[in-house]
């Protein structure tokens, strides 16, 4: 860890990070109140701790502890826990190379796949249900769980390094590290195959790199400067590619960079526009172009690995699916010709378009009246009543490609068993008065000819495209009344054998009104090629960017679609206060459970730290507005720029959740919690001592030397931090059974662990239910 004494006592122009608010305070030496504390004037303990050796020992100790706490009983439970059910499954898909779909970018899952492959996981175990046993299936799950545990452990020394690099005392850095180290939530989250440990690891690395980069700002365009700039971009891309939330890290760094560039643009700095553009381009290259390339390349790997058909097929467009080996659509797709008899299925609910001789009842329960026509329903099973024949409405050539059913054709559909034509009209459907009833009409009766005409509109197609089975999604638009054939998972009453209702929906653009031809049962000449006859088909090729674009769009849509309520979902406002946790796993036998909950002391300390910090900033602003300088400019700059950066990271990783409609969980706060731990450290330093390590940036060729000063938190620092770490450790141990899921707890013990009444622990003794 590079301590400030590594750098020669130079005068740097600006410590910490820049802020547009006090653009020239460092130029204004009259106002700076320097406390020239020499390196020797500090307390013994500070001098001791500030040495490289002490720092190394501290880091080693923290790292060892982190590994110990995260690896302790990592084999327990030997069952699928919480979201391992997803991410473990994805790892197995990578190993099997089967295509899957998920809302999160692939990097972290690729790593899990890699880890699984490395430890010899064959991918046969499918992580079907929470609670499935690993041991019985001989899954090397410990190896896979080791990956997040390692990353989670490594986060702790990085936190230390961030604080150290930002110029705080070693003991303060240790304090921030302890807040993460002893935190039950971080520990629980990084012992399982989940995405948060990699996300947080890469996020801390990004912050670290950016701080290093900022320290080299006086040596602009030097190799180190470039190195850290590129490192920032790289880790940023990794964060982003680990989990969707990582985009927030990109935003946080983006804000910091914009503030930085805004400073450079300031005329008072005396830089020319060329100089500004040079800086701008460097950042654009390293922080925009590079991450995008990396992000794309992760997806490229993702798509290159997943070449076989798998559970994710059905999410994708037909064209995409045809690039997957053994995909059903690829194998079975063939062109539909007129007079072919085929089955038609609804895309979302997978029911067949069905009809049977039974008729709609004259009157429904709510008093409306039907046409008493033949019922048209959706039916989930194979049946000869599912067969429909495509009848042309135009003259056809005798043979050849002219007989193929194409996009925008107007067709009739003949129900083969009853020899009636599909029809819809302006009669309310059985359950939805707003939609039109579908029925059929005898083939020979031409009185309703117009009502039997349907416009066949292929989805995402071009003129002249042929209708293909499996792959060709289409809408059937009724020609006279412009409704689309539609069905939804709503059952009809007994008179229709509880089959699904099919009706005409007026919103033609509805995405759920999509059907496809499932299979050609018979063609006009009676010949149907079987799959074998068509032979083995090679997957088609598709442009990577097209695939990526489609996948990315789907991910966004599905992420926004995760709005169903979840018993353990919680609102963002609850998070910092640790109002409620998440039950990850329970085992009735032995009354074991894993409950994601943080270390109450640590989290509340962070909240206090945050509010104190915001209070300090507010007081500083007000005081300066009245011409009072409450503390020296160096301290002020450190607060605004360095701690301010942490605050930006915290806010950017937290506040957007208030706007999100999707399911939110406590673990979404973990990145913000880490940032708030950094703030808590900075606030502790501020409270303990007015002195700071200054300057900490690397001196450039043109920077004016400044008097150096050293931070000194004295003896009280280590004592406070030590006591605090002990208290945290004690609470951590107390809550450990909830974090590790072992040992089991009796009802009374569970009650005693329930520090807040809002924690919904399992196996609680029912004291509250007893008679009053």
């Amino acid at each position, binding site marked *: 860890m590079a301590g400030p004494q590594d750098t020669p006592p130079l005068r740097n122009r600006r410590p910490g990070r820049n802020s547009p608010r006090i653009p020239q305070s460092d130029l204004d030496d009259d106002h700076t109140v320097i406390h020239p504390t020499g390196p020797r004037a500090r307390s013994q303990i500070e001098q001791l701790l500030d040495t490289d050796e002490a720092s190394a020992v501290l880091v080693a100790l923290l790292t060892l502890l982190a590994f110990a706490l995260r690896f302790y009983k990592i084999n327990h439970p030997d069952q699928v826990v919480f979201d391992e059910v997803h991410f473990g499954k994805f790892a197995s898909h990578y190993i099997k190379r089967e295509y899957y779909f998920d809302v999160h970018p692939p990097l972290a899952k690729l790593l899990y796949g890699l880890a699984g492959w490395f430890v010899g996981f064959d991918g046969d175990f499918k992580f079907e249900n929470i609670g499935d046993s690993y041991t019985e299936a001989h899954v090397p799950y410990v190896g896979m769980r080791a990956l997040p545990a390692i990353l989670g452990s490594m986060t702790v020394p990085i936190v230390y390094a961030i604080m150290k690099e930002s110029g705080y005392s070693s003991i303060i850095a240790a304090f921030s590290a302890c807040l993460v180290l002893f935190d039950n939530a971080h520990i629980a989250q990084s012992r399982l195959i989940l995405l948060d440990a990699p996300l947080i690891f890469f996020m801390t690395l990004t912050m670290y790199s950016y701080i290093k980069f900022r320290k080299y700002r006086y040596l602009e365009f030097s190799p180190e400067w470039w190195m850290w700039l590129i490192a920032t971009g790289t880790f940023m891309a990794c964060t982003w590619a680990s989990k969707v939330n990582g985009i927030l890290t990109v935003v946080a760094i983006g804000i910091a960079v914009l503030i930085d560039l805004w400073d450079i643009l300031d005329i008072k700095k005396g830089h020319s526009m060329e100089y500004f553009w040079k800086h701008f381009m460097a950042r654009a290259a390293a922080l925009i172009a590079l991450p995008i390339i990396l992000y794309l390349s992760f997806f490229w790997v993702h798509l290159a690995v997943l070449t076989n058909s798998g559970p994710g097929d059905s999410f994708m467009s037909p064209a995409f699916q045809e690039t997957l080996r053994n995909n059903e659509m690829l194998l079975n797709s063939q062109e539909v010709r007129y007079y072919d008899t085929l089955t038609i299925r609804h895309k979302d609910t997978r029911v067949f378009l069905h009809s049977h001789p039974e008729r709609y009842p004259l009157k429904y329960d709510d008093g*409306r*009246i039907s046409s*008493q026509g033949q019922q048209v329903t959706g039916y989930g099973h194979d049946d000869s009543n599912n067969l429909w024949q495509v009848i042309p409405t135009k003259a056809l050539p005798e043979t050849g490609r002219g007989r193929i059913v194409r996009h925008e054709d107007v067709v009739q559909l003949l129900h083969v068993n009853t020899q009636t034509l599909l029809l819809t009209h302006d009669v309310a459907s059985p359950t939805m*008065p*707003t939609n039109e009833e579908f029925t059929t009409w005898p083939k020979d009766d031409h009185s309703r000819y117009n009502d039997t005409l349907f416009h066949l509109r292929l989805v995402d197609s071009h003129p002249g495209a042929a209708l293909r089975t499996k792959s060709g999604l289409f809408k059937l638009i009724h020609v006279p009344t412009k409704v689309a054939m539609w069905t939804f998972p709503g059952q009809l009453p007994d008179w229709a054998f509880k089959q699904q209702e099919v009706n005409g929906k*007026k919103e033609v653009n509805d995405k759920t009104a999509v059907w496809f031809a499932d299979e050609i049962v018979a063609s006009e000449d009676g010949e149907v090629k079987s799959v074998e006859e068509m032979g083995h088909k090679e997957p088609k090729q598709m442009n990577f960017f097209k695939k990526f674009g489609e996948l990315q769009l789907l991910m966004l849509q599905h992420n926004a679609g995760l709005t169903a309520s979840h018993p353990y979902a919680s609102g963002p406002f609850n998070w910092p206060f640790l109002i409620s946790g998440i039950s990850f796993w329970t085992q009735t036998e032995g009354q074991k459970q894993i409950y994601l909950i943080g270390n109450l002391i640590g989290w509340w300390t962070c909240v206090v730290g945050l509010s104190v910090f915001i209070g300090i900033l507010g007081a500083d602003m007000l005081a300066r507005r009245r011409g009072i300088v409450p503390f020296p400019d160096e301290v002020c700059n450190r607060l605004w720029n360095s701690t301010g950066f942490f605050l930006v990271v915290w806010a950017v990783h937290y506040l957007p959740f208030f706007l999100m409609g999707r399911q939110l969980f406590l673990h979404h706060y973990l990145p913000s919690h880490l940032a708030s731990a950094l703030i808590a450290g900075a606030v502790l330093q501020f409270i303990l001592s007015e002195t700071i390590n200054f300057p900490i940036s690397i001196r450039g060729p043109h920077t004016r030397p400044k008097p150096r000063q050293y931070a000194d938190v004295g003896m009280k620092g280590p004592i406070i931090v030590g006591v605090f770490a002990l208290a945290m450790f004690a609470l951590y141990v107390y809550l450990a059974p909830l974090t590790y899921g072992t040992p089991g707890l009796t009802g009374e013990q569970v009650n005693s662990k329930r520090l807040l009444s809002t924690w919904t622990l399992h196996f609680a003794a029912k004291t509250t239910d007893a008679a009053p």
Partner: protein
Amino acid sequence: MSASVRVRRTASPPPGLAQPVHTQRFPNPRRDILDADEKRAAASRGYGPGRKLHPFGGLNLEPAEWKLLILIIIVAFGVRLFRISKPNSVVKLALSFDICHAMCCAFLTLPVDRFDEVHFGKFASRYIKSQYFVDVHPPLAKLLITLAGWLSGYDGDFDFKDIAKVYSNVPYVAMRMVPAMLGVFTVPIAYLTLRALECRATTALLASLFITFENGMITQSRHILLDSPLIFFTALTVLLWTGFCNEDKHEPFTESWWLWLTLTGLSLGAVVSCKWVGLFTIATVGLGTIKQLWTLLGDMRVTPRLWVRHFMARALCLIAVPLFFYMFMFWIHFAILSNSGEGDGFMSSEFQHTLRGRWMADTNADVAIGSLVTIRHVNTQGGYLHSHPHNYPGGSGQQQITLYPHRDSNNDWRIVNATESGDPYVDWEKGPITYVTSGTRVKLRHTSTDKSLHSHDYRPPVSDVDFQNEVSAYGMAGFVGDANDDWIVEIHKGDDKDRDSGKRLRTLRTQFRLRHALTGCYLFSHKVKLPDWAYEQQEVTCNKQAVMDNSLWYVETSIHPNFPADAPKVNYRIPGFLSKFLELQQVMWTTNAGLTDRHTYDSRPDSWPRLRRGINFWVKDHRQIYLLGNPIIWWLSTASVLFYIAIRGFLILRAKRGFRDFENTKVVKYDTLCGFLFVGWSLHYFPFFLMGRQLFLHHYFPALYFAILLCCGVFDLVTSTLRPRVRLQIAAVLLIIAIWNYAYFSPLVYGNTWTKAKCRKAQWVKTWDFSCNDFLDSYSDYNAGVGAATPQKSPAVATVGGEAGGRGAVVVEDNLGGAANLPPEDKADTTTIAFGQAEPGHDIFGGNDLEKSSQVNEPAVEPGEQEPKEVSVVMAAQQTSGVVQDAAEPDAVENESEEDSTSEAVPDATSDSQPEPEKTEGPQGETEEEAERARKELFPEERFRWRDSSLGTVTISQTGAPSTYRRMVQRAVNGSFVELGLLLLASCGVVSLTAINPAHQNIPLRTRCMPAKDSRFRIISQEWGMLTDGTYIKPQQATQRQAYPLALQEDRHMHCSKPLTTLLVVLFTLAMGVAARPTPIECEPPGGGDNDRRRAVDMNEDSALVPSCVV
């Protein structure tokens, strides 16, 4: 944010030199002349602007400008009030929009309604009749409308429900005048605001005329809607705030400074009392205040003490005053609405207790063995523990136990001791008084059916899970029952102020649980409705893992015959104003947040500045009203916002690179001016992006007001270097374009005649979905009125019937007398409901015909009538000729053409998509159209003859919960005539029918009603078929224990068999006929009904009040 900027440079005429400026023909365009108008003014008075001259509020108006203002007002008056009375039917109004209607579907039982003129008109009626209601908007604007109506003599009787009914005796013009006049006054306010912001008179004139000719604002202010008051008060606030800023810059703490500040506060209170959107205005002013205070803080000449004074003054006037004003409005609201009404159901029991009619008599404070009690569920609004003589279809098959929200004798339970031997149901009378304490083992006897509350190991009907048991009523008279009837009282908590309530059961004060003695489960209820067979009342179960909140109960009333007369009594604590106020705020908030249903014409905020789409308010008679802005004004305002953003961004960048733009007086002046307006625009626009609820184009209007002012500010900036005459010419060109646009789209504003061709041409943007096909081909067709009404085929499909997500506009085709030419077959093929109507001389109470009509799927055809028809709900005789004649009335609305197309397509299918009444998302338009048709068929008064039956005359009055009544009317209007009939039936003894026929609203309706011995009308239930035995309800049936009160508790559909429907509709028709007879009121003295059910029918009725006339 501050409104003006101090002049830094003296204008050209030196002080004292009275040189008229107009002689200087070519002022130097390069010079930063601050304000030519001002300069001229100063010069004409003999001194230059450099001298300290401070007009009131910084408003420096020329005498000539006052004349100009009057002229502007006259123009605005003409534009806003042109033919304001024209839509003289409710129908027209009925299709106006607002948001409220979603409330109905989103919430409990409140009749949710169209949000429209009907809606707010209805509220006015409620105010006048003091019937409590709940709305999502604060009361000020509604109070103003009511005031106008009241001053003009409106008595609140018009129901605003009956569609297409011409307003009669309703001073609707006066009520429309409120928003219209406020709309007119917005115009001079805009002028004054810009003048106070130191713009030139030309600019101010341009702005005021832009506002005048903004089609959207005109449309919105011509109807009884809340947006016009909102915009007015927003504008007023901006003006007052600007004035205050000017005063503040001049000299703080003067008298006029205080005046402007206080007025701003009051105006802020008024904005937020119109609609909660007013909070954005508060935010705008708040931001301005913060900026002022921040500037003051940085001003070292301001001492901390002075700063605190500034701060306190603003806090007082801008926080306390608006808050006080807002609360005062609610105080008035509560003071007026002292009677029970449809809004009761939203409020807590304590709140309801404060409403007249909901008031509850004092009841015994103690509950002892033998007390007759009613028990309420604490956590849900489900109501009372209830049983009725119907059995569970599954499970044990025993009698149902439910929660029922209304007071009823079926809610009465007797608490008896379960530990004694002997017959506890009798013994209690002899024993000493024993209070019920925690741990007492009791049985609960349902007194009207002689069954006890019982639980056993059957799964409940809906919550079919292992840990819940069914609760039923079991036993018979004389049967002691078994141990499954035993429950143990567990007191959960008492009231702090009543110490005894924690120890023993006290009425209203003690919350307790009932544990089933044998299985240990707790009596439990939750918001789960039972199916139709239990009238969708709330499920009651016995839950072994009961959540505490849902298993708590309290005793609401308690009567013990052995208690001495002076036994302590209790009642609900009457909540103070503050707690009522807070409760209502909370209800409004929840309701508002629940308005998330999609609507056909809703839109997202991003589409507003583009004017992507309007709102269809009303379509009828080949005319329509469509809310659409003036495109030029709209787009210009949006462009100027973008222009400001671009310029400001550019200036910031320049400043960063050392350009000293912000030291230029002109830049500073316009930056302050436009910045203020831009912030106002942003704060009235961007917050909508955060709202998930239904949003409509008219939510943009407050922001649009700012945008128009900003647009004129930009105009002032752009033309600042030009000569005044050139500037005036440019303004004139802009104005002419705007007025041309206004005129071009004005048929949509006023509902005037238009032609198809012109309409199509006017569809500049594809997404403007006014329906051009509704207009006629040429203007002459409108005058001809005949024949031209070519029955349209399918095109109109687009609008009729609406869409699943919301209520579509209704295209109601009127054939303008052309109906007479239509062959009768068309009539017969109508696909909607045909209403039965008693033919002259037919005694419906004789019953035989009814039976026939009800049991056969054919109308009760009179010989010589038209051929049978099938209709979805009712078949009944119909006199073709009469109907056709009706249709020939000019006002009549038909949609023959619609039906034609349908019926041609489906010769054998006569059912139309009839909306289910409880679904507001259904196609309401169709509803209205049906209602309209029904109305015509129902009220051919001249042909209707009433014959007395042997059942005697009953006068109907309002004895039941008005909410019930409302709901029914609501449903009736929503299109289910089944329920309209029910309404009639129920009204015998439950509600007044006065409001059903607005045409005769001043005549209390009377109808025949069966004699019921009970105080309330009862319908023999479940087997509705019983009603069709020819005589409808038989007295002896009504007195049977099986009688079941018409349970109309929840917002839901009544399932009735077709015969019943027929009957009911015929009855309804009769009732209407009776109503039509101008006979004096006949009223029998009130029966022995409960006091609280009796209420005056109508405060304003000059005839004797009609108390509950119970037979």
